[in-house]
């Protein structure tokens, strides 16, 4: 039996929802889950004793973590073949924001008042992602077999919300920008290279779920649940459903554990 821990933020919810169908298709993989609200997860770190300790600043925080994780406030990382870390989100949107008042010199012309070189955009991405990787190293160390996967890309359905949700605008901007595919490919490569150089493995969001650069197909966001099992609002574009969770776990099993499905997922 191969043992896996899925550790992360509320995005663990989609994977946990897929636990049962995954067990049927990959019976040789045993998965544990440990999830905390995003801010506690992202500010957590691995202790010298080998536990992941989310950042809790109050009794209330501790109670939330315990409630979601069968009474546990920390997670023992020992004994796992892989630890899938879900929910970190270095912001691609902060790279694409470089194009809010500038056109890419090497790219398309959209009438922006200035030009910026691809070299500068990549330098910015490097700077931001290097900082991200340094923080990951500080929080996680390299004693455990971590596989990092980004928080799910936003749902393409976010475009429908933009009128009532201004924060969606930067995402809609890059959805519609002709140079986004090339920039995202570069960005993802810098992200992966940085993490691998620091001694971590990387799992990309499965292609089947991807609608475009840094976008998830709308259907994977429909019917999503919180990590505690409660229903999300209709307009959530970040959290994904059990179908998405299954695709993620399936990719982990096949790509990182070299385990083929025992039965057809259908």
């Amino acid at each position, binding site marked *: 039996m191969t043992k896996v821990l899925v550790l992360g933020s509320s995005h663990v919810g989609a994977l946990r929802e897929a636990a049962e169908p995954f067990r049927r298709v990959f019976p040789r993989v045993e998965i544990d889950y440990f999830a905390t609200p995003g801010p506690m997860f992202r500010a957590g770190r691995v202790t010298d004793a080998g536990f992941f300790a989310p950042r809790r600043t109050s009794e209330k925080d501790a109670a939330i973590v315990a409630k979601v994780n069968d009474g546990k406030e920390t997670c023992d990382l020992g004994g796992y073949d892989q630890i899938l870390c879900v929910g970190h989100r270095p912001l691609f949107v*902060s*790279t694409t*924001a*470089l*194009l*809010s*008042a*500038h056109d890419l*010199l*090497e790219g398309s012309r959209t009438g922006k008042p*200035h*030009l*910026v*070189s691809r*070299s*500068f955009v990549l*330098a*910015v991405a490097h*700077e931001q992602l290097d900082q991200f990787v340094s923080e990951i190293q500080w929080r996680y160390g390299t004693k455990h077999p971590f596989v990092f996967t980004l928080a799910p890309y936003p749902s393409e359905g976010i475009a429908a919300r933009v009128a009532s949700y201004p924060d969606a605008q930067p995402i809609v901007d890059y959805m519609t920008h002709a140079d986004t595919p090339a920039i995202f490919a570069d960005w993802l490569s810098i992200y992966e290279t940085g993490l691998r150089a620091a001694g971590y493995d990387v799992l990309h969001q499965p292609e089947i779920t991807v609608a475009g650069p840094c976008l998830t197909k709308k259907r994977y966001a429909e019917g999503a649940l919180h990590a505690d099992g409660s229903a999300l609002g209709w307009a959530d574009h970040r959290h994904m459903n059990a179908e998405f969770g299954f695709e993620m776990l399936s990719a982990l099993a096949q790509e990182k554990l070299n385990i083929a499905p025992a039965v057809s997922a259908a």
Partner: protein
Amino acid sequence: MKDDRIISPYQGLEPRAFWRSGLVEAGQFPPLDLYRPKFVVTRDQPVMTAGSCFAQHVGKALRGAGFNVIDAEPAPGTVSDALAQQYGYGLYSARYGNIYTVRQLLQLLLECAGQYQPADAVWEKDGRFFDAMRPGVEPTGHDSAHQVREARTAHLTAVAKALSEAQVLIFTLGLTEAWEHGPTGTIYPTAPGTIAGRMTPDFAYRNFRHAEIRDDFDSVRRLLHAINPAMRFVLTVSPVPLTATASGDHVLSATTYSKSVLRGVAGELAQDYADVDYFPSYEIVTAPISRGAMYEPNMRSVRSDGVAKVMQTFLHAMGAAPPPAPTKTVQQLRAERRARRQNPLPDVGPANETESETENDVICEEALLAAFEKK
């Protein structure tokens, strides 16, 4: 009856007119009355800055003090200052990089006006292409010569916009030495082969003379007055010595020549024109009373506290800052001198010395010349 008593013309002059009372016994350095501006630059006046690498400090300090320093090519998004500056953002009022000579400034203005086209304007290195007129602003170059030209066109549009807004130009004169494309006279900010490009017989060393620099500045002034007849100019001379000279002279003599000529031109212009002022940043850093203390150990880069002193003197004179705090009295300086005699400084400029990497660092292509020194 005629008064035959001889009265010295120096009699009754202000204390600032005398070395002892104006400097040695002034109580602080720089003395508060070192600089009396001809005109005040106010916080709301659009200011354009340009010049050699020391000029980067001027723009930074003015921005920090709330002055309206034009930025016609702002860095996109939210990026660190250090990274932005590597790409020429935020150093000056546009991404023209360091402008070491007045001829270089004149060329830029003429090019903006469509009256000039630099020769050999794209330099190549290892398959990457650089704007020869500002090779440092894209450290890894562009994919093609076409992209260099396209970026330059956009840059010139931005410079023209800055010029149309500016009411004051603060220009730091840096060098007299430059490299010239012989057949056309185009002057470059760096020698071919330093960042990119290749030295060929077409390029020749040029050491500008006083009259040439004066003529160039007169042309600059005419061009800018054609855009804005009320444009004013503040000139300074960079106190940063030459990294290297191609004059054949010792680098110390070459530095003295270069700075003397620039200082002479600046002084002459300030004497001749009501709209041109000279601010003595050079004097503040190099004055004997400073004993080199405003330089880093490499005796070339200006220390951050030296820069602060220069800029605080300027801002105070403009009514935008309190006077620089009294620092060292002559007695203190003498005590320091005694201490230095007892504990002399190590030899200056060890071969393996590196430029300091402090917040105060500036982007200075000229420093790259040190890499060509025989070891």
